């Protein structure tokens, strides 16, 4: 009986670790390939205005963006003012209401970040805001750059 125990104790109980780095690298490469950093391509020009009284949004997952600005056309020309949410340009502004309402249901603490080109007119911004009020997404944020002291 004691002989049996002796035999068992003598065997090496080690997991071969030589292949571990390979497994790790495989995982690493898998994540590198699958993570998408930015999925939207902005189709309107948004040169943001700058301001001093800034607040930071720390919780990125609460934020949803609306881009407003002149459309980027081919060969660096710019066109009429367009409104973009996620990946699509919005033709009819009333769809803003439906889209934003849907997002609000998913995320009740939604903050809508308005990335508006500084040359845009207030009319379109106010129209979009009106739609946001209709949707009930009341927390907004005018995206601005930090003002550089002259």
């Amino acid at each position, binding site marked *: 009986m*004691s002989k049996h*125990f*002796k035999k068992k*104790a003598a065997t090496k*109980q*080690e*997991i071969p*670790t030589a292949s*571990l*780095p390979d497994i*790790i*690298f495989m*995982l*690493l490469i898998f*994540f*590198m390939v699958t*993570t998408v*950093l930015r999925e939207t391509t902005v189709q309107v020009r948004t040169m943001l*205005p700058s*301001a*001093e*009284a*800034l*607040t*930071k*949004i*720390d919780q*990125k997952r609460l*934020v949803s963006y609306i881009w407003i600005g002149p459309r980027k056309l081919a060969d660096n020309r710019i066109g009429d003012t367009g409104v973009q949410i996620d990946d699509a340009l919005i033709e009819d502004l009333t769809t803003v209401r439906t889209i934003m309402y849907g997002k609000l249901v998913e995320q009740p603490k939604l*903050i809508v*970040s308005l990335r*508006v*080109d*500084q*040359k*845009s*007119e*207030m*009319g379109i*911004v*106010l129209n979009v*805001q009106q739609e*946001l*009020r*209709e949707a*009930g*997404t*009341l*927390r*907004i*944020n*005018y*995206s*601005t*750059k*930090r*003002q550089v002291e002259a």
Partner: protein
Amino acid sequence: MAGLLGKKKNREPEIPTSSMADIAFLLLIFFLVTTTIDVDTGIGMVLPPKLDENIDPPPVKERNMLKILVNEQGLVLMDDRPSAVNQVREEVRKHVLNCYANAGLECVSNRSEAPGKAVVSIKTARQTPYNVYINVLDEVWMSYFEMWDAEARRIGYRNYEDYVDRKPAEEENRIRELIKANISIAEPDAA
């Protein structure tokens, strides 16, 4: 039996640690890849809720309201007086802290009754450029930030941020309560 126990002690169970570094690196790289460094900054606002057509908006006394009008050319009118964008900050301060004893301002009858009651209303034309609007809004917010800072200093903190960090946990934000940032964005006149 005693010999058996002794054997077990000698075995020294070990977890292979050579791969720990790899796991750590993997985590590190994963977070490096997924975190976006640029923090989104901007001017936060809360839109007024949709009004019920049957209920009138709550009345605001004329004297508590500071009306800022910004026209198509980016010219600013404050309570019917033409003024420059860089005057906005001081005007807002004077308006809000009008009858606040600790501010050392004279209590004027055409400005607000109390800091908590003051409302700043910004109205733009439909053709007003967005950056002019942002400039004005920024000045108004900066005015409030400065007032909060001044108030925080008065009650013994370094600045407003310091107050928010160090105030007693159960205490409501007194400064915000006292000097409410009531900024309203008015609809442009139908034209």
